[in-house]
């Protein structure tokens, strides 16, 4: 008599992956980081615009423009056919976070670009060869700032939806809370950048935003992991992503404490800002590579799926299985 079929932890086809990792390289992770910095900076610039903080406004607008410009370039460089990047704007597709995100990015970049050009022109004493366009630029400048500010949070957060809306086990399992991690990370990074670029007497809101971001990031990462399937969460702790996310914690501690205690001192604020930017970069790269890694080992696909399937079957819910006997 054959012993009771002991279902092994999992079986696979010669250990080969079930799902395929997307062909995304470090450019995409860089964009995740820069898009967050740009989005948060545009929000800071809007706040500075409304509360009359000219240096913070100028620096944050430049950060928003540069972040979205370099980020967009990185995205295009990562395409399989970069010369077709405009195909992203062929259609608007609500089921595709990449499509909606492309439109968010284009709108944001346009607004941030206009506002930043106006800042540069003013900074250089109206020396840009703008001619009669100068008065047009000055007229649309405040509205561009508002536009960039409105699209700032969506730019910082949509990438979380984009990653979650995939079959990559770690990203998909994080879908409930990844948006909170990403907007927190964007907040503390843009706050940190403003703490580096802007004198302390104008940068108080940036420090407060950074502190809110640190608190949000710490809480959101903990909550996220507690709600993920334990196996799908494993890649967050292994290999390079594990190291990166460990560094996120350390840099958050350093940057957060520095901001809280010595944010009024320009040097301390700048060092804290660097730490916060580093923390955000570590979060983005860590989450990014954890998702890619989770695709490469079939265990992360099969075990959570098995578990949820068995749980549904145990609960008597048998009508939704892909495997049927007839």
């Amino acid at each position: 008599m054959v012993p009771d079929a002991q279902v092994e932890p999992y079986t696979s086809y010669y250990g080969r992956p079930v799902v395929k990792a997307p062909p995304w390289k470090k450019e995409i992770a860089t964009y995740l980081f820069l898009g967050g910095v740009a989005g948060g900076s545009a929000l800071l610039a809007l706040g500075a615009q409304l509360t009359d903080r000219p240096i913070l406004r100028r620096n944050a607008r430049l950060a928003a423009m540069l972040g979205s410009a370099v980020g967009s370039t990185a995205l295009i460089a990562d395409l399989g056919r970069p010369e077709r990047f405009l195909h992203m704007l062929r259609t608007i597709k609500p089921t595709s976070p990449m499509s909606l995100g492309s439109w968010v990015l284009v709108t944001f970049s346009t607004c941030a670009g206009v506002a930043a050009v106006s800042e540069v022109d003013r900074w250089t004493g109206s020396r840009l060869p703008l001619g009669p366009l100068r008065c047009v630029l000055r007229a649309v400048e405040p509205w561009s700032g508002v536009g960039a500010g409105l699209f700032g949070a969506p730019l910082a957060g949509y990438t979380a939806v984009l990653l979650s809306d995939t079959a990559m086990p770690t990203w998909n399992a994080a879908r409930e809370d990844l948006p909170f991690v990403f907007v927190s990370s964007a907040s503390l990074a843009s706050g940190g950048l403003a703490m580096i670029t802007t004198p302390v007497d104008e940068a108080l809101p940036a420090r407060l935003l950074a502190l809110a971001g640190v608190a949000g990031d710490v809480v959101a990462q903990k909550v996220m992991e507690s709600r993920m399937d334990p196996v799908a969460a494993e890649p967050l702790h292994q290999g390079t992503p594990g190291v990166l996310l460990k560094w996120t914690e350390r840099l958050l501690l350093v940057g957060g404490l520095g901001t809280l205690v010595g944010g009024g001192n320009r040097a301390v604020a700048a060092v804290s800002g660097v730490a916060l930017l580093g923390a955000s970069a570590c979060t983005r790269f860590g989450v990014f590579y954890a998702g890619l890694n989770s695709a490469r080992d079939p265990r992360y696909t099969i075990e959570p799926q098995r578990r949820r399937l068995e749980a549904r079957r145990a609960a008597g819910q048998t009508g939704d299985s892909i495997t049927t006997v007839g």
Partner: protein
Amino acid sequence: MSAEPKDGNPTSDAHYDHPHSRRGFFTDTSICIGCKACEVACKEWNRNPADGDYSILGSSYDNTGALGADTWRHVAFIEQDSQRIEQARESGRKLVSLGMPQVGAPASGSSVASGTGSAGGGCGSGGCGSASSSDSGPTPEFRWLMSSDVCKHCTNAGCLDVCPTGALFRTEYGTVVVQDDICNGCGTCVAGCPFGVIERREDGLVDTPASREMPDTVRKPQDGVAQKCTLCYDRLKDDETPACAKTCPTTSIKYGQREDLLATAQQRVAQLHEQGMTEARLYGANPNDGVGGTGSIFLLLDEPEVYGLPPDPRVPTADLAHTFKRAGVAMAGMALATAAAFVAGGRR
């Protein structure tokens, strides 16, 4: 967005102005002999580049490895001893006792449902010559599982949903096809597929590692774009059978209208259970599963993961509306936090 399965025919979602029948494959792995003619026919017809460097994978007679941008049919080989076979049978019996959706004859006791006039493509149930003539005798000492895997052409297709350019589209046959002149190679579909089928092509030329010179007519520069099985869209347009099904010598790969194939598949499972092969089960036949059922139905002889298939795939888009809501809350929180920071920071 993942719509709830209506009639299981996704062509209505695609807004074609007149009704079409959904086409698909039924891959009956119980009569696959692992000849790989399907892989060859697919490569030749679609002029897909060679992939890999002809290395021996060392795990079985399968040196193709997996589906990919250049491999749209992949024959899996699994070697099993009697213990594994008995486990497979047991897991199949468990499916029956769980009361899984079942059409046709009950798993044991009564005779095979027959005479329903299967109009399936190629071969009706029972007429294909079962490779395993074993009735419910002792468990064999050894067996080979061979299965020709292919794109599932899902009812709710993850790749199609997440494609930002509209390069992926639903054809009038209910299949999912890439327009290679539109795709810009963003790679999102690769991550969106719960089955790991679609992939971005890195080398667009039909060339062997030996750098054999090929005439320009054979060169199809499609590097950098996503590629996968089209269910031979070009052949379907001409009322031809897809290359793999056409060439399959044992009719393990059947092509036809999906509803006919489903009937054939259900009869075949009932027949195999009748013969004591309780390990037989269908994969992709259920319109209520996580992808709304698949256009390509498989008859498997063990758990799906044994063949490298996901046991409980779910189209990621099914959760997208909820994720967008969560993200909306997060984004609003970020905007509010910024506003609060400026209020607390005061006006200068």
